[in-house]
């Protein structure tokens, strides 16, 4: 299990003192179609961008609340790691971005018929957000609206 012991003492102390947000009430959207007919989108917090996209801004206080669109047919090897955190090992996900952004795996799920379709785009952001106010108030409603407009039925969120 991932646990706090992975982190340096300053990070552990920060996390122990940090006031995490609490989702209350907890929203609940039941699966509205069988997975074999569902359209799936991925949202990864691993900070990946495409070579022609702006990197996430490491200098922004509280974190960069922006998103990047990643087309469904992207070759994972094209993804560039711009996550600013030094608290985890980046090497494995740089070698195989599917580890934190499973583009190929979800395409395989669609090919097998386990899911109905892969959405034509996924989304990437950098999860190192110590002050998520703008992320919650601005970025997420726009992102969710885009997913609704695409007809996304299910979304899988992957941290790093």
């Amino acid at each position, binding site marked *: 299990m*991932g646990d706090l012991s992975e982190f340096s003492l300053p990070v552990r102390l920060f996390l122990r003192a940090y006031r995490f947000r609490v989702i209350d009430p907890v929203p609940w959207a039941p699966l509205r179609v069988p997975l074999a007919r569902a359209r799936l989108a991925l949202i990864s917090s691993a900070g990946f961008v495409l070579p022609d996209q702006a990197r996430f801004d490491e200098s922004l206080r509280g974190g960069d609340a922006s998103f990047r669109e990643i087309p469904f047919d992207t070759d994972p090897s094209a993804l560039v790691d711009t996550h600013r955190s030094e608290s985890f090992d980046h090497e494995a996900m740089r070698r195989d971005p599917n580890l934190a952004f499973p583009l190929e795996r979800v395409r395989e799920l669609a090919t097998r018929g386990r899911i109905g379709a892969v959405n034509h785009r996924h989304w990437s952001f950098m999860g190192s957000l110590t002050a998520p106010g703008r992320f919650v108030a601005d970025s997420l409603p726009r992102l969710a609206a885009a997913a609704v407009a695409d007809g996304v039925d*299910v979304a899988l969120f992957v941290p790093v």
Partner: protein
Amino acid sequence: MCNQAVCLAAAEFERSGISTVALVLLRQVAERVRPPRALALPFRHGYPLDTPHDPARQHAVLEAALRLLETPAAHGPLLVDYDPAAYEGERA
């Protein structure tokens, strides 16, 4: 902080009518933040889908997440621990 961020994002999607699963690498964060559905993974940060260049292991994690979506629960939070041993046969 990635764990909190994906939980918050999942909640916004769920409010919009989209069913979600959040993978989490720190169970205690999911317990605190309370995303609608979460799969707690026994892997360290940087390795959310288990092992690089191992499609079978990566698919096992995804299958567990999909089964969470199919769990007939009426409300959240639903927080389930991922047990890699339960998917050994499917990786073969």
